[in-house]
């Protein structure tokens, strides 16, 4: 009896152990092997209807027999402990304002009083936004691009306001080649050059929570179809304007080049590259020839055929006369010339304009010009410290500058052929005195060059 009892005890214990390993636990709940059949997923949608939130759950296995199966949520609720889902065909839905959205809620699949499968979920981390809507594409001809705009209901919500949008578009011929663009706003610009011409494109958009809330992508918005224009038409419309502008530009450049070539020597080059004054040429240029026979040259051989007239009358100022008597050598004949500075060509000169120098006549004889006496030689007027004075020609004969000698042509008086080498300018002035008046510049060659250059500058 004892052995029999022991045998039955061992048998029943083994039976209990075997029955436990077969998947049926003592508490009646299903073990892990069967839990996978009741796996489910949920997503929440906040403020889907005013201030009401929704929670939707469904089994991952579509073949699950949902008869007598319920869903229940407990925890993280306002004023209540648990809420039951409402069954709609194959999904389970609950709409309520009582989601606390802080902390985890426990969602269980229940068969009667038994919990088949439970999950601890924070409803703020399984948010699925509502799908965007009003998707449209507008072609902007001026900007050569396409403006994509859409709307979303989350712009007016309190909690889930910050979203990330995914715009997808594809070529009608490439069915699986979707191009994606992520943006946080509700406007997107697609450049025309990024798209193929004369092609139909399909475009759609979806959203996902981006800020403190987390979750899943929303459903795609309804697709929008648009066609890109031809490139030729578009470029042809803008050509006339560009063509006109380019033609005008070319014409202007050509005109400028022609003008530059024509005016180069006369106008442009003197401004850009002014020529340095050549004193000899300057003096020759400045001295005008009142008569055909007037010779302007520094070459004494040019005056071999000239008749040099003797000057008998001298017009001199009183204040200068004494100076001239002290400084003028006896062989020199002086004449006075009075001319204003800088105005050598003018026939009328101020009468009181007298230039004197402290130098002696031997070295730098002063030159004085008489009022109203027009000199045949337009010698440059000094603006420097050494003014010019016309010298009177004495009875002994004039001193003639070997470089410069003016001749009036037909005169009654003659000049001696020999002249000392001095840097002077002789001028004949038949207007005021009836006899030519010879004027001299300073004998210093350097002074003559200086005065000529400065006169050129003044001119």
């Amino acid at each position, binding site marked *: 009896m004892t052995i029999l009892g022991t045998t039955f005890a061992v048998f029943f214990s083994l039976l209990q152990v075997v029955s436990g390993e077969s998947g049926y636990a003592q508490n009646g709940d299903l073990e892990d092997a069967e839990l996978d059949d009741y796996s489910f997923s949920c997503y929440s949608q906040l403020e889907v209807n005013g201030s009401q939130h929704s929670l939707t759950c469904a089994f991952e296995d579509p073949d699950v027999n949902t008869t007598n199966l319920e869903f229940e949520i407990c925890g993280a609720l306002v004023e209540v402990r648990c809420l039951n889902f409402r069954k709609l065909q194959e999904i389970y839905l609950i709409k309520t304002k009582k989601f606390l959205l802080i*902390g985890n809620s426990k969602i269980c699949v229940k068969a009667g009083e038994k919990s088949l499968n439970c999950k601890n979920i924070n409803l703020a981390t399984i948010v699925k936004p509502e799908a965007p809507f009003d998707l449209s594409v507008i072609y902007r001809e001026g900007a050569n691009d396409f403006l994509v705009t859409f709307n979303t209901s989350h712009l007016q919500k309190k909690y889930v306001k910050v979203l990330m949008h995914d715009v997808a578009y594809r070529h009608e011929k490439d069915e699986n080649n979707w191009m994606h663009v992520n943006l946080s706003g509700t406007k997107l610009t697609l450049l025309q050059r990024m798209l193929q011409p004369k092609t139909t494109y399909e475009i759609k958009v979806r959203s996902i929570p981006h800020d*403190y809330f987390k979750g899943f992508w929303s459903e795609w918005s309804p697709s929008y179809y648009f066609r890109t224009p031809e490139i030729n038409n578009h470029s042809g419309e803008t050509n006339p304007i560009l063509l006109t502008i380019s033609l005008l530009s070319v014409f202007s450049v050509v005109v400028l080049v022609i003008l530059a070539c024509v005016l180069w020597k006369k106008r442009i080059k003197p401004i850009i590259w002014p020529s340095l004054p050549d004193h000899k040429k300057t003096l020759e240029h400045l001295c005008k020839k009142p008569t055909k026979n007037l010779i302007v040259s520094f070459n004494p051989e040019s005056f071999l055929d000239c008749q040099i007239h003797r000057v008998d009358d001298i017009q001199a100022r009183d204040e200068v006369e004494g100076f001239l008597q002290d400084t003028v050598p006896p062989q020199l004949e002086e004449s006075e010339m009075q001319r204003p500075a800088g105005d050598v060509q003018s026939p009328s000169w101020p009468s009181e304009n007298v230039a004197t120098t402290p130098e002696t006549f031997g070295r730098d004889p002063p030159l004085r010009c008489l009022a109203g006496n027009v000199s045949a030689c337009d010698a440059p007027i000094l603006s420097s410290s050494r003014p010019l004075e016309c010298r009177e020609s004495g009875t002994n004969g004039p001193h003639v500058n070997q470089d410069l000698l003016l001749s009036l042509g037909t005169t009654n008086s003659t000049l001696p052929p020999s002249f000392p080498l001095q840097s002077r300018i002789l001028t004949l002035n038949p207007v005021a005195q009836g006899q030519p008046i010879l004027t001299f510049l300073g004998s210093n060659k350097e002074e003559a060059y200086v005065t000529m250059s400065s006169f050129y500058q003044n001119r």
Partner: protein
Amino acid sequence: MKNLGQSKKGEVSFRKIFILQLVGLVLTYDFTNCDFTEIKKEYCRTIREDLLTYMSGTKSTEFNTTIFCNNRSHCLTEIQRLTFNPTPGCAPLAKELFVLRTNATLALWCPGYSETQINATQAMKKRKKRKVTTNKCLEQVSQLPGLWRRFIRTLRK
């Protein structure tokens, strides 16, 4: 005899007040060990919008800011005091959404907070309910956004 009875009643009321204050001191929570980052997330996620909803219709300059805090723990202490402790003229705001979420946030991210609150709630049950004065409550709640902003600024340091 009447004077003797009145004096005894006064002693009893003073004793109750003293005990209640003592309980309050003992049950004051130290927020030093809280997860401030998660508390900030919860505030930015829901509590901030709830406070704005509660204060909607009032101007930002209508009430002066009279309560300040120095550090994170001090800010949470002041937030807790203004959110949960009733003040004369304003009954507890327990049913408001921002109150519920603040309580849930502190209970979730501050170890030992929920037990303290339960005991304090039981100790305070004996206090009489006062009539809710909307303006008084608005004035009290108007201090909370500033305290929360100050709390967030301390986290940026």
